[in-house]
């Protein structure tokens, strides 16, 4: 047998795509070996730097809770207040760039080369897009966000020393119920519609393009090859990948924290289980254990199956709420809210000269930072399952369809809750704390016990799919783009995510410390995303169509 190892790393010209020539061999910087009975295969600087930094962060939060709490709230304020314009402006660019890709001939490029065939059916694909992208958030905010914006809009504006102190979007709608509903729904849809999905689409497209078509490893740094050249394999690339790991881990831990508080609230509503740290720690541990089983069943046997089950359940719950609630009002609302969204979109997405600073910084800028910090994770996951789609098909499906589904979801859940206030004067949902609002709303509909239980199951399964796909993604990045690294590494990350969520929930700042970390990693990553748009353009332009 002849030694063929010398030609590894130099792509075979396949003719179907424009492969980038590089001497880099995937896994060349990895160290592999044996730790006790378990094998490992990791990208050394990325794995160690991100691992050690996260452990240090957790220790700091636990050792000096007071000081850490102050530092976090300062950081949160500084980033959302100082860079709100940057988050809003960047997100607008991402949406416009996606629309540009749909209408130009660049959209005909096929991910994986001209002859590539999709790996997954539309149903399985959508289910995974959704479960990874928004799952827990939809459950957490589905009722509470439209409700918050509706209430604050009804409250009208308030000002002190020339600055607005209220949290209402835009100019509010003091006392005008119909206008407050429209404004509240438009603001909610704005946060869950085109903008977040454009952010995901950019990252996913960059990853898919540079690994399936260009033959580079499936890590964030590969998208920077057109800009940095072979320097992406050095410290520039290590920094980008490490940042992606941070963003993913903190973004995930925040969602896991939301999930745990909501599941706890639901269990309290249904079975009177107390709401405290112990229950939440038990919940996170138990759900992480379920996630481990899913991790060990792999992409097709674990996360795909769970995503499909969850999409089915979520759809049933949606139909149930739709038909047992004020059906006609919701359906006419859906069209009306969509129009309201279009109508208010220019004002809501305007990055400068806004008067509604609290809304813009506390809601919009935080959301954008949150979506951006999730984007390496959701983007890589979307990329993993999107080989064989054309760029146009890809952008339409990742941008428009999930946006529409989010509009529907918010119209139904938020719409019913708002109708309960407006029509029936039922304000329990409005008055409850955020994690509980969903269950208070369901309480007014028939079979509340069953639907609440389904709600809890949905939160838990979304939690599992996020944790599972997150482990898969962090493992791939920290293994230098290898998707076949030893499975114990995924197990390690899955446990680690749960541990970070637990530690931070227990710390003084609780969820707010997580949120601060999310937005502070979101800020540098926004720059990464802006550069990615340019790289995508360059990369697509040289592809055969």
């Amino acid at each position, binding site marked *: *047998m*002849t030694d*063929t*190892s010398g030609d*590894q*790393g130099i*792509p*075979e010209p*396949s003719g*179907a*795509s424009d*492969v980038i020539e590089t001497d880099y*061999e*995937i*896994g*060349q910087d990895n160290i592999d070996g044996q730790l006790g*009975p*378990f094998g490992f295969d990791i990208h050394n600087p990325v794995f160690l730097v991100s691992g050690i930094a996260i452990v240090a962060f957790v220790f700091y939060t636990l050792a000096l809770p007071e000081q850490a709490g102050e530092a976090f709230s300062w950081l949160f304020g500084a980033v959302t207040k100082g860079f709100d314009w940057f988050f809003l402006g960047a997100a607008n660019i991402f949406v416009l760039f996606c629309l540009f890709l749909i209408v130009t001939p660049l959209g005909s490029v096929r991910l*994986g*080369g001209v002859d590539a065939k999709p*790996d997954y059916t539309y149903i399985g694909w959508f289910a995974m897009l959704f479960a990874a992208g928004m799952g827990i958030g939809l459950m957490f905010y589905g009722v509470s966000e439209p409700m918050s914006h509706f209430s604050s809009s009804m409250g009208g504006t308030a000002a002190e020393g020339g600055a607005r102190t209220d949290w209402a979007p835009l100019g509010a709608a003091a006392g005008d119920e119909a206008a407050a509903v429209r404004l509240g729904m438009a603001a909610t849809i704005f946060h869950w519609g085109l903008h977040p999905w454009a952010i995901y689409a950019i990252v996913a497209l960059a990853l898919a393009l540079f*690994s*399936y078509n260009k*033959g*580079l*490893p*499936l890590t964030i740094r590969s998208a920077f090859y057109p800009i940095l050249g072979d320097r992406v394999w050095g410290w520039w690339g290590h920094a980008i990948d490490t940042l992606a790991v941070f963003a993913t881990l903190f973004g995930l831990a925040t969602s896991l924290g939301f999930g745990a508080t909501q599941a706890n609230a639901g269990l309290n509503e249904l079975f009177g289980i107390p709401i405290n740290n112990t229950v939440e720690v038990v919940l996170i541990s138990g759900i992480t254990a379920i996630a481990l089983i899913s991790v*060990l*069943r*792999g*992409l*097709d*046997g*674990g996360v795909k199956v769970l995503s499909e089950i969850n999409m089915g359940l979520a759809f049933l719950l949606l139909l149930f709420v739709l038909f047992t609630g004020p059906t006609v009002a919701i359906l006419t609302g859906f069209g009306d809210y969509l129009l309201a969204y279009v109508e208010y979109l220019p004002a809501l997405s305007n990055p400068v000269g806004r008067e509604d600073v609290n809304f813009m910084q506390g809601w919009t800028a935080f959301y954008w930072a949150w979506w951006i910090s999730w984007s390496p994770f959701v983007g890589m996951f979307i990329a*993993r*399952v999107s*080989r064989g789609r054309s760029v146009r098909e890809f952008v339409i499906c990742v941008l428009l369809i999930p946006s529409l589904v989010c509009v529907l979801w918010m119209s139904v859940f938020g719409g019913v809750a708002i109708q309960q206030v407006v029509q029936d004067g039922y304000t329990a949902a409005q008055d409850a704390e955020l994690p509980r609002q969903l269950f208070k709303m369901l309480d007014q509909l028939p079979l509340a016990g069953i639907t609440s239980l389904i709600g809890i199951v949905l939160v838990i399964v979304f939690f599992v799919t996020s944790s599972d796909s997150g482990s898969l993604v962090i493992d791939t990045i920290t293994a230098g*783009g*290898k*998707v*076949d*690294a*030893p*499975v114990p590494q*995924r197990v390690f990350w899955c446990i680690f995510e749960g541990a970070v969520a637990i530690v931070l929930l227990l710390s003084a700042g609780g969820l707010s410390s997580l949120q601060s970390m999310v937005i502070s990693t979101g800020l540098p990553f926004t720059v990464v995303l802006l550069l990615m748009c340019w790289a995508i353009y360059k990369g697509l332009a040289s592809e055969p169509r």
Partner: protein
Amino acid sequence: MFSKIMVPVDLAHKEKLVKGLQCSADLAKHYGAEVIMVGVTADTPGSVAHTPEEYRTKLDAFAADFGASNSVNASARAVVVNDPAIDLDAILLKAVKETDADLVVMASHVPGIKEYIWPSNGGKIAAHAAASVMVVRD
């Protein structure tokens, strides 16, 4: 006694294949059997190849090389999966059926404590395949 020998190969770790390949060549010559090499890859770029097509080409070349240097009849079969780290056992068991092999020769490491809860690929195949399985320790 045997007419088709299936040999799972991991092109990323060729150094670990030497003993197993030698063994399968000897058996193939002895029984006049043909050798079918099975390689599993993800659709993402890996250390061996950048695309599934490239992987297929490399595996074909590897098998042809093996056949020529040992003067046995050898062919290759590349399988593309989404999650090779998890799905490997299932894929190999399916390949045993589909290739109609009556003997599987595969390399494996020396088992330790871990194998009690988490069997090696060789162990799993030996436990579940209908064909005879020879596990070659390195």
